[in-house]
């Protein structure tokens, strides 16, 4: 099970990476999702360009309201809080649940987001946080809201010559609370359902993840949460996830209710 032949180059800078992509190279970050597909010969790129070592791809920059994380930071670096956490522990918690430690040591935040597997953790988390994706292309930087980044299973909003350079994550306030409930059969395996709830003062978000499509924001549930009311989660899920069977929707409702229940737990 060895890959079909491909060429490889390492980009020292983001413009160099973008130039390679313009010439048809596909980006390689940690390769933890791409690798299996290469080995299975399902993915057959002519050329890969390593973008994870490009200057700035592992940077961290902080402002009063956000943290900007380079796309090539690894899950493990987030898990270990080597990257300053501005999310009251949400990012490290999510990171620890991604696959296995050996994968987290190489797999990157940006790579996972771009791979856009519906069942993966970061797409749901970033949607819940209202994060902003910073893309770099020939024309320079472009900001894309997380909820517009994943278009569908394995499909993101980047053009062929664009790459994800960083993710900007809004700071949660010290009073913020969150619940993240992932249902899966086996530790580290793909989720059957993800429920994410974030409550931060006057701001709340409720997201159903792992829905075989981009994660679904549930604004009515969020509004109800802020008002201290219970919402008709099932009805909203039925509207938002009509492609799922009732049983599959029920599982997402379970994950959401569990995430909501986590809010009241001491943190």
């Amino acid at each position, binding site marked *: 099970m060895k890959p*079909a032949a491909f060429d490889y180059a390492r980009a020292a800078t983001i413009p160099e990476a973008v130039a390679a992509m313009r010439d048809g190279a596909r980006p390689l970050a940690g390769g933890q999702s791409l690798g299996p597909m290469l080995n299975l010969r399902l993915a057959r790129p002519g050329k890969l360009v390593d973008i994870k070592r490009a200057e700035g791809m592992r940077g961290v920059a902080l402002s009063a309201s956000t943290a900007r994380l380079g796309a090539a930071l690894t899950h493990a670096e987030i898990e270990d809080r080597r990257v300053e956490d501005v999310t009251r522990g949400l990012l490290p918690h999510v990171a620890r649940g991604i696959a296995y430690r050996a994968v987290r040591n190489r797999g990157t935040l940006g790579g996972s987001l771009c791979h856009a597997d519906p069942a993966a953790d970061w797409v749901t988390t970033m949607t819940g946080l209202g994060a902003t994706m910073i893309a770099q292309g020939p024309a320079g930087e472009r900001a894309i809201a997380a909820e517009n980044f994943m278009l569908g299973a394995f499909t993101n909003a980047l053009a062929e010559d664009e790459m994800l350079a960083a993710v900007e994550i809004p700071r949660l306030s010290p009073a913020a609370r969150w619940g993240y409930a992932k249902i899966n059969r086996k530790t580290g395996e793909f989720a059957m359902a993800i429920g994410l709830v974030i409550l931060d003062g006057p701001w709340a978000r409720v997201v159903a993840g792992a829905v075989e499509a981009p994660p679904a924001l549930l604004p009515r549930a969020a509004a109800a949460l802020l008002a201290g009311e219970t919402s008709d989660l099932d009805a909203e899920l039925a509207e938002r996830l009509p492609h799922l069977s009732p049983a599959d929707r029920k599982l997402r409702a379970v994950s959401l209710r569990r995430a909501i229940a986590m809010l009241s737990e001491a943190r």
Partner: protein
Amino acid sequence: MDGDGGGAGIGARVLRKEDARHLAGRGQFTADLRFPGMQDVAFLRSPVAHARVGARRASGDVLFLDDLTGVADIVTRSSIPGYKLAPWPVMARDRVRYVGEIVAMAVAANRAAAEDLAEQAEVEFEPLPPVASCDAGRAEGAALLHPEWGDNLFLHSRFDSGIEAVAASAPVKVELDITCARQVMHPMEGKGVVAYWDHRAGMLVVHTSTQVPHLIRSGLAEVLGIPQAQVRVAAPDVGGGFGYKCLLQPEEILVSWLALTRKAAFRWIEDRREHLVAGANARQHHYTLTAYANEQGRLLGLDAQIEVDTGAYSVWPFTAVLEAAQAGGNLPGPYDFRAYRAEVFSVATNKPPFAPYRGVARPGVCFAIELTIDAIAKAVGREACDVRAENLVPGSAMPYVNVTNKHYDSGDYPASLATVREQIGLDAFRAGPARDEKGRYLGIGFATYTEQSAHNTKVFAAWGLPLVPGYDQAHVKLTPDGALEIRAGIHTIGQGLETTLAQIGHSMTGVPFENIRVTLGDTATTPYSTGAYASRGIVMSGGAVSRAGEVLAGRIKAIAAHLLQTEPDAIEFREGRIHAGNASLDYADVGRAWYLRPEQLPEQVNTAGLEVTEGYKPATDNGVFSYASHAAKIAVDPETGIVEILDYVIAEDCGRMVNPMIVEGQTYGGAAQGVGTALFEESPYDDQGQPLASTLIDYILPGPTEIPAFRISHTETLSPHTAHGIKGVGEGGAIAPPAVIVNAINDALATLGARITQIPATPERILAAIAEAQA
């Protein structure tokens, strides 16, 4: 001698001789072997389940069947009446019959380049209607895999001791429909073979990851049409077998053919996708059961229809119908009843051939009979554990011949059940809450089983196999410096025979454990054994080592007595030395006398010296029956369908334990595979015969968080038939978990009226069962 272990003999919990090299990363598996000029082989495999194969084209070093000379099909004969032959071409001839069947072989300097060549080959497939299930195979007008058969049945077998009288009169009747998924075995090391031509010896040398090197030699010689003396088969370190590696495989033949004809070195290492889609298929049974009982739940009779989704061909040498024989023969389990009828259909399907996986049919039959016992208990409104206990063959009835003529040699089955009942805390559980603080439903399940082990000539002859095991042989030798060499043709595949055979050797000869070396699994250096399967190694090869060791001990004593100027009867082996009264010798003194200082030998010394080869099989070789009861406490999340195993206890009896640590390791490992069978593992196919799991993301192997911390207890009821009272234990652990866990799930879900009769009990199936019950 027996028991004079000095802390390392039979019964001692000694650490393994195998460990050091593996811990250092210096084990030597097939893929680790290096020979000059070795080339890699990759295969082009059929993407379709059933097709006529038309034109074939390729460039580079790619071979099709027509390019091979002198290679016969794999033909697995059986003496069972009605069994149909399914010759298996080593590469596709005019038809392919499963996805993954080999169509072309590519050779290149490395694996990646060989895969490049293989995928560039062009082959025309003209699709034929696929047979993707037993139902499809048995349907009126079904497409035929082997048109000359007239149907799709390898065999339709029957057991019938008469059921009509019981059926007419029994007050309680229970019906069940039970399904077991197709599984793939997944030793962590897949299959692999390296072959080269030894010019000096004039011999084909095949290093292959196998449980049965001597059998493979016979098989290779037959298919390649060369004398057995021209073939050496040696098994290096084997990274798990579980049954997959006791078969002669097309890849083994093809790589050997390359070495034979090109007189160079070639290697093929199975990858995980090949393993998942093309090999190691097992377990897929379907049962339609009617059980009859009295008002107390006493099982009176069982009427069964069993279908085995056997795949396209018959594996060599175990045939496509070993599974059926085991299923029909073992379904009655450890239970005492006399009315039994079973019809078993071994259905040919467009899937990879069925192989004998750890437990061979018994995880399925145990699942079926144990669910039946629980269903009977429910029908009569009693505690399932009580009903189970009353139906088990009691210890007082031993030895007991059951309705299918299994000779249960010894043991107390109800006592083992009582042990796990106590340990799992059934009575306290029944008095406690039915749900936990998370709202999960709690349940306890039980199963008791027998593990026929070391069944031999009589049994395999009756199963019609082309090769019937007989005497297993071992060779022991005292070296000039007083060490003991043990050689046996069986192989160690993780079960620790380098350690346990040394323990037996130590018990028999007194040579210090650390001075004993065990060499296994090489036709050039070890005496004949049919190999490691059917939980037979420690009984058969252990028995042979015991017997050879006993003979050698006598010869050592004769020489030692002469050196010490006493009688052999006065000699004792103790603390690593040879004693007579206050005088003592080192083993090296005896070795030196025979090899280097023959002038010191007695005049009547046995001229065979300090080397002994002996064969062994138990006088009664119907098999000896290890047994165990398992119990589990589980929690079912009714919202997600996820099952957590909260506690799992095992009370096992495998006769005399040579090394309790290894017995436990075998049992835990088997039980972990059983948990996989129960909850996770499934190789689904679509209706076109496409396998849908080609990665370990699709096919879930349980990891450390899915496997419970097993608790185990032992009893030792010695077998009356075997050396030292030993019984086999390699497979048993895998047998009970599906039954135990699903019985526990059904216990938990009883209040919801839901019931699971299909494994694996996935979250989807559990949620569906709950939804159905609530509808």
